[in-house]
């Protein structure tokens, strides 16, 4: 049985963690995930597209907290350090380079995983201390249906993984339904953002390019053994090649967003899908029910 799938919320429906992903940016992933969240009751929306979080445009939350997210990284005092290299030898990620002849200690933050081993093995008092380094900001607030949580990575930070895993660890409530807007693409941050999901929704556009990007994310989702379904955005009724691929892969098409000028226009103005297409809110609610009933 899936994690969390037996829990019920106030309305008596099951609570689930649903991640929304896409093979690349600009497929309508956030447009869909925000409206899905807004159509439900008692739901937390997580914007984990940490390089460019823009769910707030549609969700329009009231932000109450901004928390800096820190990691512990080593700092070496070259006056105290004896250049014994114990720290560098112990670091599994090669993030430290000690050059005894030159009496230099080099640190490569991009490689550091904040594991703390270096400070543990250093035999010299205060030669290597752990310092906090801010890597991003977590913004918390409320929207009409529940909590809004967003991560934004500082510019120049090499990886969104630590911020995403930190948010999931500290803010994901096992008792509540969560809609998670994942980063686009197929990299490690995407994997991190869907680890705790009960279900993964892939948003795609029915073009040859969209298909090849989608194939990559399908692989990831399958590797992680997650249940999944596809949302076709800008559907003009000619999505044959995409449908063909999905049929062969035994992945259901769970929703279609039609192609219409009106939708494009309201999208560009930051108006959510549920406020644009009449009746779509009910359809999204039903989609959630179907997913949670397996």
């Amino acid at each position, binding site marked *: 049985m899936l994690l969390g799938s037996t829990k019920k919320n106030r309305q008596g429906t099951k609570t689930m963690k649903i991640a929304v992903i896409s093979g690349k940016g600009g497929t309508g992933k956030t447009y869909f995930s925000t409206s899905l969240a807004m159509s439900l009751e008692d739901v937390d929306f997580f914007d984990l597209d940490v390089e460019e979080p823009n769910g707030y445009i549609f969700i329009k939350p009231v932000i109450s907290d901004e928390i800096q997210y820190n990691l512990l990284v080593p700092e070496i005092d070259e006056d105290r350090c004896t250049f014994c290299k114990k720290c560098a030898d112990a670091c599994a*990620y*090669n993030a430290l*380079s000690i*050059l005894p002849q030159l009496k230099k200690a080099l640190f*490569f933050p991009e*490689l550091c995983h904040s594991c703390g081993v270096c400070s543990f093995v250093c035999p010299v008092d205060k030669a290597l201390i752990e310092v906090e380094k801010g890597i991003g900001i977590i913004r918390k607030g409320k929207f009409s249906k529940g909590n809004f949580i967003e991560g934004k990575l500082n510019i120049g930070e090499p990886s969104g993984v630590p911020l995403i895993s930190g948010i999931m660890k500290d803010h994901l409530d096992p008792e509540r339904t969560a809609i998670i807007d994942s980063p686009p693409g197929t990299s490690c941050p995407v994997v991190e953002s869907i680890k705790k999901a009960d279900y993964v929704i892939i948003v795609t556009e029915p073009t040859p390019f969209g298909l090849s990007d989608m194939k990559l994310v399908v692989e990831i989702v399958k590797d992680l053994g997650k249940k999944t379904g596809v949302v076709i955005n800008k559907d003009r009724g000619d999505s044959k090649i995409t449908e063909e691929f999905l049929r062969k892969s035994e992945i259901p098409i769970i929703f279609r967003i039609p192609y219409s000028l009106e939708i494009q226009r309201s999208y560009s103005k930051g108006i959510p899908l549920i406020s644009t297409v009449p009746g779509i809110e009910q359809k999204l609610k039903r989609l959630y029910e179907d997913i949670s009933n397996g």
Partner: protein
Amino acid sequence: MRAFIAISEDNGVESKIDSRFGRGSYFMVYDMENEKIINVEANKFRDEGHGVGIKTAGIAVEKGCTLVIGAQPGPKAEQVFNEGNVEIFVMTEGTVSDAVRKYKEK
């Protein structure tokens, strides 16, 4: 001057230079003035993940090399070399003797 050369086989001066810095099978330390091999040792880090270049560069500096011949090191390894005032001579193919000749001709 001592040169540090990453090679893909241990075959004296006829050893082939490895096309990837930090992932060569062996490291050779070579005396450029006397044209002599000082030592060759197996690269025990080659199968590690990220950051092998940093380790390799650290070894080169530790062995007192002021020249490294081989494939372009990554930016982080390059930083280590810069700290150690090690000159980088990029060469991705050929043998150690070719490299020494090319370096001297430059």
